[in-house]
């Protein structure tokens, strides 16, 4: 980030309270209670042991903003290719791979989850699809889709709904499906596929669950492969057609067509990444609107001011980042801020902790849309692997925020806050279901 740190950055370990020491000694990201409410654990690590080895998880947790930034800026030492594929169905990878080969049309490694220089070429293909200017052109259409969806929910039962299942999830699916050129009306199926794919990096599935999820992924792959074959023969105006006909430019200037396997992995990644995390962000938006005093009023006050609404969205992404942590692997022994990471070690960049780093964001738990360095949050990661769909994600959250206020008011949680459940995973912080009541706002 081209911004400057104004606070001194204490790389020193800070003294911990006895409760924090206990958390650090006993806590693990595999604990579902910590997954749901992780901030005290993050804080204890960030202060006392910023690159902490979580023994139960078998991963090094990188928790300070400066260290996350340093690691993600060095994609050759800290490999996404090895980190991601090591994390995938960890402990059961061979069986997972064999299952997809046998039943799912093939095992397609994620081409985008790779390292430079290969990654640079693959990524180049995808970069033009979702630039901020292209996404701005989509705003009217996204608004139509979101308006219609919320309208449907209100028409069904004008006073209550599940904000995650009825709004957040179908909303982001409808938008990415339209961009890719897939079929509408398959929201339940695509939602199940998304859960199955993301569970592979969540580290919480049993063997039985892995097989169930692998079955879903096979179903997904068969669907995508059929669509892609069709577009290979008869191209349309959609991303699938672009990808099946795409060529990458090699370092020597020669051009080469993407392999079908690469294209499948990219369509799959775009579909899943294009709905799951953004749905989480919108679910989290309903969560803060219904549980944090003043948030609904604040959103209402910024809705017609584009600059402040953009800042609201960005601060929301900092404050409640959907992606908790993503993987890297150290390809050689490396010292990061005083901690020696062994060769081959699996690491998680804990973005949610980086966004709470008080040396970068003073009073991190305060929701402050006037922060002068908002752009430094790491909700989208950073470096060459920074989320490629970031402009689309921001736009979807922004349009959702605007349409929620335009059509709904007095939104309340319909269950006690303590009963909210979170998806078991180390990768994201995702509310599974959020029953709400509301009143319709007349236009």
């Amino acid at each position, binding site marked *: *980030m*081209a*911004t*400057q*740190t*104004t606070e001194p950055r204490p790389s020193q370990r800070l003294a911990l309270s006895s409760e924090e020491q206990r958390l650090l000694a006993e806590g693990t990201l595999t604990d579902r209670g910590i997954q749901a409410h992780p901030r005290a654990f993050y804080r204890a690590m960030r202060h006392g042991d910023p690159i902490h080895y979580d023994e139960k998880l078998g991963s090094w947790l990188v928790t300070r*903003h*400066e260290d996350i*930034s*340093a690691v993600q*800026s060095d994609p050759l030492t800290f490999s996404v290719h090895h980190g991601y594929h090591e994390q995938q169905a960890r402990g059961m990878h061979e069986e997972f791979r064999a299952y997809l080969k046998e039943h799912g049309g093939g095992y397609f490694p994620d081409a985008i989850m790779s390292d430079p220089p290969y990654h640079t070429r693959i*990524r*180049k293909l995808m*970069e*033009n699809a*979702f*630039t*901020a*200017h*292209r996404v*701005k052109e989509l705003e009217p259409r996204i608004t139509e889709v979101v308006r219609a969806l919320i309208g449907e929910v209100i028409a069904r039962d004008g006073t209550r709904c599940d904000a995650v299942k009825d709004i957040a999830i179908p909303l982001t699916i409808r938008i990415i499906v339209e961009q890719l050129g897939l079929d509408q009306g398959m929201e339940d199926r695509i939602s199940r596929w998304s859960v199955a794919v993301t569970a592979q990096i969540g580290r919480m599935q049993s063997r039985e669950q892995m097989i169930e999820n692998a079955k879903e992924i096979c179903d997904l792959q068969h669907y995508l492969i059929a669509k892609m074959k069709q577009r290979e023969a008869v191209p349309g105006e959609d991303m699938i057609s672009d990808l099946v006909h795409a060529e990458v430019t090699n370092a020597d200037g020669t051009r080469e067509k993407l392999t079908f396997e690469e294209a499948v992995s990219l369509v799959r990644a775009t579909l899943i990444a294009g709905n799951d995390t953004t749905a989480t962000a919108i679910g989290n938006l309903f969560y803060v609107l219904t549980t944090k005093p003043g948030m609904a009023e604040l959103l209402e006050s910024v809705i017609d001011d*584009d*600059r402040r609404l*953009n*800042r609201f969205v*960005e601060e929301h992404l900092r404050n409640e980042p959907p992606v908790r942590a993503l993987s890297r692997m150290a390809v050689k022994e490396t010292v990061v801020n005083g901690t020696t990471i062994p060769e081959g070690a699996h690491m998680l960049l804990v973005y949610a902790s980086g966004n709470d780093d008080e040396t970068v964001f003073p009073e991190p738990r305060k929701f402050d849309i006037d922060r*002068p*360095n*908002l*752009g*430094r949050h790491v909700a*989208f990661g*950073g*470096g*060459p692997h*920074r989320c*490629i769909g*970031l*402009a689309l994600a*921001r736009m979807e959250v922004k349009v959702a925020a605007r349409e929620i206020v335009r059509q709904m008011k007095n939104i309340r949680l319909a269950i006690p806050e303590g009963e909210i459940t979170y998806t078991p995973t180390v990768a994201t912080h995702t509310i599974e279901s959020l029953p709400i009541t509301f009143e319709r706002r007349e236009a």
Partner: protein
Amino acid sequence: MGKLKVTMTDVNGDTRTFDDVEEGTSLMEVGKAHGVAGIMGDCGGGCACATCHVYVAEGWWDKVGEPDDIEFAMLDMVADVMKDTSRLGCQIRMNPELDGIAVTVAPASTY
């Protein structure tokens, strides 16, 4: 090989001039191709991350022009280091009128 000239001062204060820039190349691409410190271009030129932030040198602003609303929104996310002459390098494409332009990379933090 192109023939347009660009002078860039990186975050460490080192100034270099590149005199073989092709028309149509963005300043972010120039900076990345030559490893200019502080130009990262994470999002690939999509005007979506503010990691190619530069200050345009005196005398060039009129030719470069103001950022549009989308670019301004991104610069606003790094308001602490934004100036009146701030632009994102990915949004400035070289053309003969910009031949000889000079920019300074906005102060990057150490990460």
